[in-house]
């Protein structure tokens, strides 16, 4: 199905250069937006750019999934495909062959993450205009969209690169623009400034730890290329330098991915950033950092190393469990709905890490499936949230009372995503939690299965409080009349809500993506 993109839709230059263009297009357009006079025009341009990136991501996914027949047909037509072998695209930047030059390397795992980031980025761009127009000063709107596209390009770059140092550069590109975007929430709530500063300090520490770790690996191996690490590291397992590098990288990326207890920057940053920024970040930023973590755990290092197995059992799994319980509890006691959702995000990162820490194909694909589903449901929840901020200017639980009657379309979509977050059958969340339960049972971690169920019960409580206020309480403010979020916002919101229902009914598409991704990474360096 998706291969018809290659044979019918995409021109030859797009197939040959999809990998760099996916990142370069938003980066170039972002700088060009400085010269664009109007915010509305900048908005339209950013939709087109993120849409183009989505198109390139689809091409890459098609290339990764293409069978030998399709690839042979492409080669016969004289089209450069950059296939290293079946399922792996390798693009040499500047024509310098890896491992000397920087390599963009796409396998099933990257292709999935790139599709997720560009899909969410496109939807978020479409819905952004009403809320950006309301929350950002007119003369800054074009620069705001510029910063957004830089962030988008950085996240895509992290997900696409096959070079450990290049990953650091893209991580910083996305992070620095994120700090700016979060701080722009100061127009609505001054607490955005300390939140952004806090995020800046924590994020910089995370990036520094990561780059120190890469430095250790470079000292031990003399290379920065991830595929090269896979080949060189097995001889150096007992090396202290490599082990120290591993520890630094896990902590650094863990901080970026909001791994408990390194998540302290997240709730405030999500709560006080402009609504559009929260929507985009919640669905992409921690996901991309988690991708980088998985990439290092399974491609660069390998579960075959004793120190990594130990860190799965004694570090990542316990921290994942702690996140699922502690942050779900914290979510229950928040009065601001955005903070509830933010704490719930940290708890959901715990689910994904639990799947990853099983270090089996089943576990990792369960974690990846949850990663994808969580992007869809949190994206939807924060989009509905943005609609409420736009029309009612309130974010506390009291402001949500009775909204089910005054904004039924917005809140129905919110409810669908909330049910998906809880994991009610027939929604996306159910599919991934069920798979996670099966994976933990298969591994014999019955206690982890118990925690998953317990944490889901907590999710029933914290989302239930919001849903109860929305649908069963009388409005606090009787002047509230029926006032729906604008149509521009409702359409992407419902796309996400329906995607949640669709995955709940038939999870084969995301399941195959996650499964292929897990097999691609574990097949490379793992024991299975």
């Amino acid at each position, binding site marked *: 199905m998706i291969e018809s993109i290659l044979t019918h839709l995409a021109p030859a*230059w797009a197939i040959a*250069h999809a990998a*760099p*263009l996916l990142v*370069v297009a938003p*980066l*170039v357009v972002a*700088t*060009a937006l*400085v*010269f664009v006079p109007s915010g509305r025009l900048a908005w339209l341009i950013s939709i087109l750019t993120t849409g183009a990136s989505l198109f390139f991501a689809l091409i890459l996914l098609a290339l990764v999934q293409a069978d030998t027949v399709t690839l042979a047909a492409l080669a016969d037509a004289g089209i450069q495909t950059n296939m290293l072998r079946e399922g792996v695209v390798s*693009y*040499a*930047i*500047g*024509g310098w062959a890896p491992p000397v030059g920087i390599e963009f390397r796409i396998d099933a795992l990257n292709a999935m993450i790139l599709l997720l980031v560009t899909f969410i980025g496109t939807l978020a761009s479409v819905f952004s205009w009403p809320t950006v127009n309301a929350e950002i000063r007119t003369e800054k709107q074009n620069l705001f969209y*510029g910063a957004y596209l830089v962030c988008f390009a950085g996240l895509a770059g992290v997900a696409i690169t096959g070079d450990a140092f290049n990953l650091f550069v893209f991580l910083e590109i996305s992070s620095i623009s994120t700090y700016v975007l979060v701080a722009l929430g100061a127009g609505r709530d001054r607490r955005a400034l300390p939140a952004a500063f806090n995020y800046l300090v924590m994020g910089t520490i995370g990036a520094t730890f990561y780059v120190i770790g890469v430095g250790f690996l470079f000292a031990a191996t003399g290379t920065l290329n991830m595929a090269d690490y896979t080949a060189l590291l097995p001889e150096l397992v007992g090396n202290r330098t490599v082990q120290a590098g591993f520890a630094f990288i896990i902590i650094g990326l863990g901080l970026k991915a909001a791994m408990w207890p390194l998540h302290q920057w997240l709730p405030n940053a999500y709560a006080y950033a402009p609504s559009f920024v929260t929507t985009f970040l919640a669905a992409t930023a921690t996901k991309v950092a988690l991708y980088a973590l998985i990439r290092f755990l399974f491609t660069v290092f390998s579960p075959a190393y004793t120190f990594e197995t130990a860190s799965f059992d004694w570090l990542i799994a316990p921290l994942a469990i702690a996140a699922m319980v502690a942050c779900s509890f914290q979510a229950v006691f928040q009065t601001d709905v955005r903070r509830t959702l933010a704490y719930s995000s940290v708890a959901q990162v715990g689910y994904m890490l639990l799947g990853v820490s099983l270090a089996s194909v089943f576990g990792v694909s369960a974690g990846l499936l949850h990663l994808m589903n969580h992007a869809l449901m949190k994206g939807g929840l924060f989009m509905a949230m943005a609609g409420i901020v736009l029309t009612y200017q309130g974010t506390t639980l009291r402001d949500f009372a009775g909204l089910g009657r005054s904004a039924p379309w917005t809140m129905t979509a919110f409810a669908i995503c909330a049910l998906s977050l809880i994991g009610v059958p027939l929604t996306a969340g159910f599919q991934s939690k069920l798979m996670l339960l099966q994976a933990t049972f298969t591994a014999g971690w019955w206690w982890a299965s118990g925690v998953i169920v317990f944490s889901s019960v907590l999710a029933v409580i914290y989302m239930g409080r919001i849903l109860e206020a929305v649908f069963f309480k009388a409005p606090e403010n009787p002047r509230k009349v029926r006032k729906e979020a604008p149509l521009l916002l409702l359409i992407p919101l419902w796309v996400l809500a329906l995607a949640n229902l669709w995955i709940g009914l038939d999870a084969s598409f995301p399941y195959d993506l996650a499964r292929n991704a897990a097999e691609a990474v574990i097949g490379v360096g793992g024991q299975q």
Partner: protein
Amino acid sequence: MNPDHHVILRVVAKTLIPLITLYAFYVQFHGDYSPGGGFQAGVIFAVGIILYALIFGVSSALRLIPPSFTRGLAAAGVLLYAGVGIWALFGGGNYLEYGALLDEPEGGHHGQHIGIILIELGVLFGVAGSMLTIFYAFAGRVAEISDEDW
């Protein structure tokens, strides 16, 4: 205050600033075969302007180079850099493959030369523009609470 209070500073700065700017371009154009390059040149160039702002006041520096110009300069630098990469795509090479820039026969190195010079120029614009933008952001910052309100 006596207007001639800083006369030595002003006279010295007036002689130094052209030299600093000239030195920036020296570092820039020798960057492709000696230590230095766009980043250092951009910093040195921006330092010349910042020295001017420190000695003669931010307002006259703002008249000389307005913030909208520095922002545009930084963006234009990135555009130039990335644009060279896209130019290489049109030449049939990979992204940023300088050898493909000029469509020259095998063994030609002018593409490499042009490519690195243009890219370093992009870095010069980007760094100088960002340095000055950051400086203006701090120097031109107006306290949100006036001193009497404390």
